[in-house]
């Protein structure tokens, strides 16, 4: 009851303008926040922003990419939001369109490549964490076949699969990654079936780029290992879960809002990685031996210091054609548009 009165009071004050206006931050999500997956990870970041002094946040979930996104973002801008995060690739053009109409509002778009004077883009170098999880998987496999349940063939996912394969090959040159596309982000039944199909094909570690933990369950039921994604999925498959590649948006989001409040924010391209803590790996399961842990830890430090850019030559593609010459590393633009598989990945790109 008391909360409701406070709310009414707050509304009255707000509508009469007597309230000192908070810094308002809006988030647009592509899926429901409850999915324990991609949007959930962003929403954890939002909660960290909400806890900041003088800041209020809100979000809209399940916003289709396209016309609806444009309307939602415009609504936020019109309602006086100061900073708007649109967290899915498909929001890029709508965000840009709205950003041009509201030059005073700060826009940040996740996973795209376009910017404007008041629109930044950002993403996390998830492939760094993927590489490390690949190392663990490569060390633990006995059949040398790793299964990867993947959502859609877009660069972000392809990059992750490639990094995973490179990591696995760093520990085990014979490791091969089998890919199954589900064309869903969150459909536990289909994803579990996909994981089982990989297990039947002889894979003995299952990794995933899906939001549901169903592939983890499948691995545990067969008594083999699994690698999670998004957040620590150990609770879904304690006996199978080796580690997971996890998001942690809080440091980035709070820093952006802090800069905006201080007036130092710039519309840049932010691509934070392991060094800033935006991506990480979850704690190892008890079955991961000490020597593997040590190697992964060493690689993690090297990545954090920038000594190992992951995609460094020589790298050949599926057909064996050299894509990255020895000693060269892929540029950020090349990484963002990656649409080929490295050698050792078995699967189509459609």
């Amino acid at each position, binding site marked *: 009851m008391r909360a*409701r009165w406070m*709310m009414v009071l707050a509304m009255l004050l707000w509508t009469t303008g007597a309230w000192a206006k908070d810094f308002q931050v*809006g988030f647009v999500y592509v899926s*429901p926040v409850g999915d324990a997956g991609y949007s959930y990870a962003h929403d954890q970041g939002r909660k960290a922003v909400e806890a900041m002094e003088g800041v209020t946040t*809100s*979000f*809209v*979930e*399940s*916003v*289709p*990419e*396209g*016309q*609806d996104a444009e*309307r*939602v973002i*415009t*609504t*936020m801008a*019109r*309602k006086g939001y100061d900073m708007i995060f649109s967290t899915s*690739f*498909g929001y890029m053009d709508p965000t840009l369109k709205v950003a041009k109409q509201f030059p005073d509002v700060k826009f940040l778009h996740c996973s795209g*490549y376009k910017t404007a004077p008041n629109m930044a883009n950002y993403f996390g170098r998830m492939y760094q964490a993927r590489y490390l999880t690949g190392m663990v998987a490569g060390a633990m496999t006995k059949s040398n076949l790793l299964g990867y349940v993947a959502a*859609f*063939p*877009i*660069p972000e996912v*392809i990059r992750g699969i490639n990094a995973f394969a490179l990591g696995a090959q760093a520990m085990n040159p014979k490791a091969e990654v089998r890919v199954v596309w589900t*064309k869903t982000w969150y459909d536990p039944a289909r994803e579990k079936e996909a994981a089982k199909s990989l297990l039947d094909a002889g894979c003995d570690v299952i990794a995933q780029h899906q939001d549901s933990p169903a592939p983890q369950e499948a691995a545990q039921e067969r008594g083999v290992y699994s690698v999670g994604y998004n957040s620590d999925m150990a609770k879904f498959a304690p006996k199978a879960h080796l580690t997971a590649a996890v998001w942690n948006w809080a440091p980035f989001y709070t820093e952006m809002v802090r800069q905006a409040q201080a007036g130092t924010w710039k519309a840049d391209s932010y691509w934070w990685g392991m060094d800033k803590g935006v991506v990480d790996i979850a704690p190892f399961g008890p079955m991961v031996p000490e020597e593997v842990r040590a190697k992964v830890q060493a690689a993690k430090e090297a990545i954090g210091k920038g000594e190992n850019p992951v995609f460094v030559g020589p790298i050949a593609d599926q057909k064996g054609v050299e894509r990255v010459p020895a000693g060269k590393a892929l540029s950020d633009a090349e990484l*963002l*548009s*990656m*649409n080929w598989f490295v050698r050792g990945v078995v699967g189509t790109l*459609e």
Partner: protein
Amino acid sequence: MAFVVRKRREPLPWWGSCLVFLGAVAVALAVGGALLSFQGKPAWRGMGILLGSPVGSVWALEDCVLKAIPLFLCALGVGLSFRMAVWNIGAEGQFALGAVGATGVALTWGATLPAWVLLPLMAIAAMVAGGLWAMIAAALRVWCGANETIVTLMLNYIGILVLEFLVFGPWKDPASFGFPMTAEFAPAALVPALPGTRIHWGVVLCLVVGVLLSWVLRASRAGFEIAVCGQNPAAARYARIPYAAWVAVVLVAGGALAGLAGFLEVSAALGRLQPSIMTGYGYTAIVVAWLSGLRSGSVAVVALFLAALRVGLESLQLDLQVPAAFGTMVEGTMLLMVLVGGFWTRYQIVRRQA
């Protein structure tokens, strides 16, 4: 004292359906409000936002119209077949194929043809593609007696996968950084906005199609035959009306209308084809068609109303963090209540005569 149900000699006139519609809306909102307060959210304020925000500004009203356009066209299409008790629930897939057809033309001739040739060509391609997609269901229904409800529904899933196959494969824009979307359309392939507004010319197209269709249904022989087929297939056959042919016609015409909606969405709203074009207009259209009692004029009103609900729902999410599924639930409740209410327009309960 006992009561019995008796059929009315004449169903209640138009005001009966109006009352039923309003009653259904009231019940649906009441259920929605109850669920909101069940989740600890302020119900009255929620309803205020849901109904108030879509009409709160010119800008929001424009949005309602924009969203109502595809709903209107799809609902006209499915409504046409509902008149004949042919249950086409495949507007979603036909919409996808329409978008695919229009995109095919835009990508092939976008750079070479002027807008006045290109846009009609895109519209025709969309209608043909949507129509052919519905033709599959029509052919199976006419030749095999296959239930068109299931076939059109399965074609929805397949149609969306066709669209995905194209944008993930052959049609993927090489400059899109590998993301699943076609290249941006050439300016000639974009439906322009009405001067001074954000509403595109599709709204004029809707008016023309709506007027034309209600004229055909009301005043032409075709309309008469469809009406007979719908009310009494046996009588239609007796009167030598080609029932099977009309089944095919309403299905294909419905597909063409949904395809047209797909064209407008891809050309006016997005300017390129991408999977996110599919947002369930085809399913909402079923609700629109039935709520409007299958009258073309009412279809426009109901399409606007449901579009407004969707716009209001976003504000509701933003202000009260209500899950997105709230809208679907309200729509379903409304539809069910209109069905229940339809009872009163056709029957009455009277005291049993001793």
